[in-house]
């Protein structure tokens, strides 16, 4: 299971109007692999968040550059990699700040964004960030996770 069975690559301009295209591609591939409706919707959000981040942070909304969207299709999992060659940001710092809202939060000071990374980490099974000539986010969703979880006592899903 170390080599993907199939690889799909999409290059997108860093423009917001292409975030929807990335979602359609994601749902097409995930649907083909037999993922549940819920899992597909989770992946659509995670992919959108990663691409929105690349547009806003890496390219500062400039329309030059490319966002690479790679799908590594395995028999039991889908690995999605979103990478850019844009300006880097401190992943550790942003990750530290991203968190859900708290019940007692002061309305006046509620954050109006910054939930993107939190959603990616919450909605995907495994997430890795790499920084090397840009930022890349590698997100994995396992097929039949429920069954894997039931067997988790016996062996780990990896």
């Amino acid at each position: 299971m170390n080599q993907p069975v199939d690889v799909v690559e999409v290059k997108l301009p860093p423009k917001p109007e292409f975030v929807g295209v990335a979602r359609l591609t994601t749902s097409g591939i995930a649907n083909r692999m037999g993922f549940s409706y819920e899992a597909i919707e989770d992946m659509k959000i995670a992919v959108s968040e990663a691409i929105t981040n690349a547009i806003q942070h890496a390219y500062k909304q400039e329309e030059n550059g490319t966002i690479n969207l790679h799908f590594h299709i395995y028999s039991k999992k889908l690995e999605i990699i979103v990478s850019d060659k844009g300006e880097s940001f401190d992943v550790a710092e942003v990750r530290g700040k991203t968190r859900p809202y708290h019940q007692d939060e002061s309305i006046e000071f509620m954050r109006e964004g910054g939930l993107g990374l939190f959603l990616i980490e919450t909605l995907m099974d495994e997430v890795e960030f790499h920084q090397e000539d840009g930022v890349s986010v590698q997100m994995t969703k396992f097929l039949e996770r429920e069954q894997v979880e039931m067997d988790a006592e016996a062996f780990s899903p990896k």
Partner: protein
Amino acid sequence: MNITVDVNKTDGNTIMKISGEIDAYTAPKLKETINQLTKEDGKNVVIDLTDVIYMDSTGLGVLVAAFKKIKTNGGSFILTGLSNRLQRLFTITGLSEIMDIKGESK
């Protein structure tokens, strides 16, 4: 895919029905429409999300901004018509504990 926003005003209450997908592309348009509505003080706003088929953090950001503005101006802010998917988004981000969501399935 685009977004449409229908606004209905009845004495002091504004009902806003959003249809379509809310993402990085459509969120600015939604923000602009909401900003127009939240200019006045003491507004009671109901946002109907029944026909929203997709939303991510960009949409949450717009709604949080509107919520803050309306609340600090003494108005009320109610969300309605959330699908299970949208409800999940509000639950995992903690927003369902802060915002008034009608017909919430807990």
